[in-house]
């Protein structure tokens, strides 16, 4: 384990010279391969604070780690009772929302980061979602973005993990974040913020690459690039299996 740690420290040295403190970060993996039996993945994020001078005496160090999947527009729809049944009525398009977003902190979120720094760095879950405005007839646009967060949180796609980071000696920190099985491909941006007195004093970014591999990759690409061949292949496999099982039963019955 120590050797592994040392390896990552060598591989991932990064700078963020602010107030003389820098983040040195390690990730248990910087790529996630989605294979046929992919069942989620746990990312271990650990690191240290490198500094030239001793840490300030009475300002404790806090750390926030975020992992952010690719952002895409999303349509949120609301059901209402019309003619006795529940149907979708109002819809609001959110310009951009990450498909996955996790925030881990070393303390209560509001006590360790100021609103202005949250806004500047888009740290909290609501700040990671961007939407410009709602059409005139929708008065309560906020309930739509709250619903988006609620639904994705329920599916494990948005995670708010307060007090999930342990910080030792104002220097070492570690946390682990579970990536669920219903993951979308893309570059997952990992950010680390060091905070003192509710201000961000240093930050660091790394990328975790989430990709489908092997058969998954092959089928996905084929379905997008050669949909006709993919469709015919699906049918051929279906018919072969149907005929094969029928033939197998015939032989089985004769025997």
């Amino acid at each position, binding site marked *: 384990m120590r050797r592994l740690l040392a390896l990552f420290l060598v591989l991932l040295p990064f700078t963020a010279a602010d107030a003389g403190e820098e983040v040195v970060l390690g990730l248990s993996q910087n790529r996630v391969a989605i294979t046929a039996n992919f069942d989620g993945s746990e990312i271990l994020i650990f690191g240290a604070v490198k500094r030239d001078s001793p840490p300030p005496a009475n300002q404790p160090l806090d750390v926030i780690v975020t992992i952010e999947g690719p952002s895409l527009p*999303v349509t949120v729809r609301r059901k209402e009772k019309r003619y006795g049944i529940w149907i979708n009525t109002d819809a609001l398009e959110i310009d951009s929302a990450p498909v996955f977003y996790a925030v881990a902190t070393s303390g209560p979120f509001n006590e360790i980061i100021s609103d202005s720094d949250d806004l500047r760095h888009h740290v909290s879950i609501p700040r990671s979602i961007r939407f410009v405005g709602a059409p005139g007839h929708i008065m309560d646009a906020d309930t739509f973005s709250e619903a988006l967060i609620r639904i994705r949180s329920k599916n494990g796609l948005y995670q708010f993990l307060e007090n999930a980071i342990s910080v030792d000696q104002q220097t070492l920190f570690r946390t682990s974040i579970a990536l669920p*099985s219903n993951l979308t491909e893309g570059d997952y941006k990992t950010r680390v913020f060091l905070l003192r007195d509710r201000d961000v004093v240093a930050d660091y970014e790394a990328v975790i690459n989430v990709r489908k591999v092997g058969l998954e990759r092959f089928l996905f690409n084929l379905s997008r690039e050669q949909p006709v061949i993919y469709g015919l292949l699906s049918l051929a496999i279906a018919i072969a299996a149907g*005929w094969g*099982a029928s033939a197998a039963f015939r032989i089985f019955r004769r025997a």
Partner: protein
Amino acid sequence: MQIYLPIAEVSVNAFLLLGLGGIVGILSGMFGVGGGFLMTPLLFFIGIPPAVAVATEANQIVASSFSGVLAHLKRKTVDLKMGTVLLIGGLVGAALGVLLFNFLKALGQVELLVKLSYVVFLGVVGGLMFIESVNAIRRSRNAGAATVPRRRQRNWVHSLPFKMRFRASGLYISVIPPLLIGLSVGVLAAIMGVGGGFIMVPAMIYLLGMPTKVVVGTSLFQIIFVTAFTTMLHATTNYTVDMALAVLLLIGGVIGAQIGTRIGVHMKAEQLRVLLAMMVLVVCAKLALELLLQPAELYSLGAAGGH
């Protein structure tokens, strides 16, 4: 054993899929229905996106019906001429259905349409079948061992032009009703992810007056071609056919269908119809409740940009 589905982009238990395929396959073989009207809602429940469930189910029905058709062809219980007429209507219907599906998906109302269609069709068809078959069973009990002579009703179907002779069914009727039945089944195949047997079988019996013996084989014959066409349309316009999901469902489904066909041979037509009617009504009631009761989550998410 969890398996990640490449197109649906979710991870599900492989044995769950095999089991679902097997159970629905048995029913498919017994009743001559594709089983899609049960499988598609079940796929929604285990978290498969509706668009993927509908398209993949069409693919899976091809396989489960194929082995059924082979069994029926061997027993010569398929009216190929009637099947071809139904098929021509079906292909046109499937094309219209995919257009409608894609249009409603953009509006965010596809789920409502799918559920409403299920409730209406399953309710009417299931109710009629149930009443009719219960009466038939009662009649045959009252008449003792004697079989009830089959009355040929002469209704509006017999007064339309373009008549054609269907030898295997012993019918001489217009091609318009079978074309229309095929067409509506094609639309349902495309938008509901069903083979359409649940509507075609009663329509063939009650509207066309076909003998029950050839109805199952003939409907399966039409279903494999219409669902194959639907699969291609969804694969090329929506990219929603998940091959891995289809393969798992069909492995269970194909085996189940063979078992089901054997069971079906040993059961009386009236008993089969009562059972099918009851199942249709149960699925109908479940879907109706979902529309009538307040859902726990009023909001839903959809991909944007589909205008």
